[in-house]
């Protein structure tokens, strides 16, 4: 599904900075992978490269056998719109639009028929439990609701790969739990591959596999066993093994 081969990213500047070094990563269809690591370890850079917002300095990214970085700018926009779904930490909803309009936006841009859009939005809203707020504006709803709207928007065009950047970063524990359950449900039902970057071990424990990166390199990975509780414990252990919060200064800050 998604395949990264020897991906490196170097930020040019007065002092060149190596953000990613030879990352190899493969995600199967329908797999749910979480990426963890301390601040400055290169998580977001990696996500940006996969989401085609940034280009790798060397290496190759393949999504469904295609390399999106070889596409022209306009084709790339269409590719993003049709093949990928995005969920952001700060939701990125447009406040000039209502909830329903936000959800159908990707389809609107593609020129889908109103009937189709209505139907899809309705189905998603029922699944995500937001059908009662469809006509509200984005500043009238809570953070948890906003993230569910963002999930609906990311899912409306049935993307092959869903990318989430700290989806629970702005939410309280109850809302986090709801959102994570929803993502798992989508992942199981629709067989959508999911890649999530997170700081939150609780959120990460919902995934099938957690990949740890540190200083731009793959550090290790652990798989979910039978119990989510045990998986959570393993993640915590791994984080403390990596040095936990005490040492997560990036090399730039020192």
């Amino acid at each position, binding site marked *: 599904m998604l395949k990264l081969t020897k991906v490196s990213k170097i930020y040019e500047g007065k002092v060149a900075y190596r953000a990613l070094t030879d990352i190899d990563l493969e995600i199967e269809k329908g797999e749910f992978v979480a990426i963890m690591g301390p601040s400055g370890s290169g998580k977001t850079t990696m996500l940006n490269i996969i989401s085609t917002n940034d280009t790798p300095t060397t290496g190759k990214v393949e999504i469904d056998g295609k390399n999106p970085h070889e596409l022209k700018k306009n084709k790339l*926009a269409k590719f993003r719109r049709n093949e990928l779904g995005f969920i952001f930490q700060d939701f*990125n909803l447009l406040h000039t639009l209502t909830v329903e309009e936000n959800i159908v936006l990707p389809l*609107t841009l593609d020129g889908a028929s109103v009937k189709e859009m209505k139907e899809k939005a309705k189905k998603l809203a029922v699944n995500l439990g937001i059908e009662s707020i469809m006509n509200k504006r984005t500043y009238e709803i809570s953070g948890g609701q906003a993230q569910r709207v963002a999930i609906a928007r990311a899912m409306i065009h049935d993307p092959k790969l869903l990318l989430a950047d700290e989806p629970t970063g702005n939410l309280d524990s109850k809302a986090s739990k709801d959102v994570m359950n929803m993502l798992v449900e989508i992942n199981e039902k629709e067989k959508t591959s999911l890649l999530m970057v997170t700081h939150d071990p609780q959120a990460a424990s919902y995934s099938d596999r957690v990949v740890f990166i540190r200083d731009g390199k793959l550090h290790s990975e652990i798989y979910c066993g039978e119990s989510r509780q045990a998986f959570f414990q393993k993640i915590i252990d791994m984080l403390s093994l990596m040095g936990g919060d005490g040492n997560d200064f990036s090399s730039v800050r020192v």
Partner: protein
Amino acid sequence: MTFRQFAFNNVWRNKRLYIAYFLSSLFTVMVFFTFAIFAFHPAFSIGSIRGEVLYGMAVAGGIIYVFSFFFILYSMSSFLQSRKKEFGLLIMLGASNKQIRWMVFLENILIGFFATIGGIVAGLVFAKAILLIAENILIIDESLHFYFPTLAIVITFVSFIFLFFCISLFVSVILRTNKLVDLIKGDKQSKGEPKASIILSIIAALLLIAGYGTALYVEGAEVVFAMVPVIIVVTLGTYLLFTQLSVYIIRQLKKNKLIFWRKTNMLLFSDLSFRMKDNARTFFIIAIISTVAFSAIGSLYGFQSYLTKQAKEIKSYSFTYAPWGDDTEESIENDLNVINATLKEEKIDAKMESLKLTYFDNESIDSRVLMVKSSDYNRYAALIGEEELNPNVNEAIVIEQSSAIVTYGPKASETLMDGSIPLENGEVVHPSKVVETDVLTEINGYYVVPDKAFEQLGTPDYQDLSVAWQAENATEEQLIKAGEKLKERVEYKVTAIDYTVYEINKAYGPILFIGLFIGIVFFVSAGSFLYFRLFTDVEGEKRKFSAIAKIGLTEKELKRIVNRQVALLFFSPIVVALVHGAVALTALSHLFNYDLTLEATIVLGSFAFIQFVYFLIVRFSYVKQLKSATL
């Protein structure tokens, strides 16, 4: 870091944010200063420019100053609006209201000071160009040389420092203490759409129709009486058009999902309605300001063309001479000699014709009327190349002025056509047709009768003399020179058409220039309002588009959205203003009974063109800014 340093650094390190406000202030100062350079030019204080013109310039200067005040005030308040979040942050960090006002006050003084200096420097650079243009439009005998405008500099500097000081004081009014949470969320909350009611929308349409209808229907002197009510009705109608009718239409469009959910329409319309309250107000201001500019320039230009054309058409002979009623034969003889000598002096070859004008009291039309022998008429007609008239026996031809003269009451021809001319031999001559020519000047019209019938008219009740010269192969300069000399030598008895037109242009030039200047100031500031409206929200727009771009938005789609958004902003108020202007100029042409179509087309067309160019420039920079945010 002291608070003063903070305020200073805030401006200095945030140059990009302040540049729009700074530039529009600078522009305003520049406009006022160039006008001052012109108004205080030494050529005017010693030259032949009359008092009224100087008075007119003082008034114009005042208008520009007052307008500058409101313009800068508006620029500043929209600038402060875009910084709500920053103020919120400062308050959150513990800045008192007093401190924030003090900071804004300092900033304004700083910007105002540099804008004033910059405006004066920029004005000096443009001064020569302005003076050159003025020289050509004004027809001034003295050339407007470049001078160092000490007085203009002092006056501009003092008045604008004072203006910026007043505006800085005004800040406390604008910066009403909002709730902190409102400030921080500032850009996310919609000010809401104005309430749109169907009734008010219909009233808007009705008001506009009524205003336009009246303006187009009334004729002649009625226009003057209808003007004020029509202006009020149309202004009100325009306001309702933007606050009610447009909101109503957008609502209906939004309800129709087939249209609203079609591709990029959703982004466009939601954005429009989100900012409808601001937009409606801006649209209204721009439409009214532009209408004022269009009408002012259009009517001045039209009026000038009307005056010169009329003068040229009524007296189509190069020179005409009409003695006073009590002039003796000798003095007339003397005058004619002087005129002929002057023409010789200027080397003008002219054909001369003279004619005794005979007036008869006519009972059938109850007034004194001019009768002209057809052979006399034909002599004169030949002079200016008009067609000859040969009335049949016992037939008279009614002649009417073809030129546009403001007349009230029935037309001359209508009265004369009803009349009849009794002859001494008992026969009666009846008028057969009306001909419009410029052969002889008689406002009430006259009869041309066959030579034979003329002899039977008896003794005239009043006689006058008319002498006309038609120059051949003379340049305009020669004619103007001769006209000027004749004015001194024979005073009011001679009319020299080219010199009269020259004099009208000379007297009218400054008025036209002032009108143009003010019109352009209004028009350009309307453009600045638009620029502000667009760039106040540019940060929010950048965020919005970068969010959409992450989902996937092609460059073409981005351009399409922005194109429509900017086009709507630029053209909807201007189209309204153009229609307003066109109606106003049509009403004006009804007042003078003079066709202004060409003038109106030139003026309105050139404004539309300038607006289009401005649109292209602004769109380019706007798209560039948005693209830099999305990629």
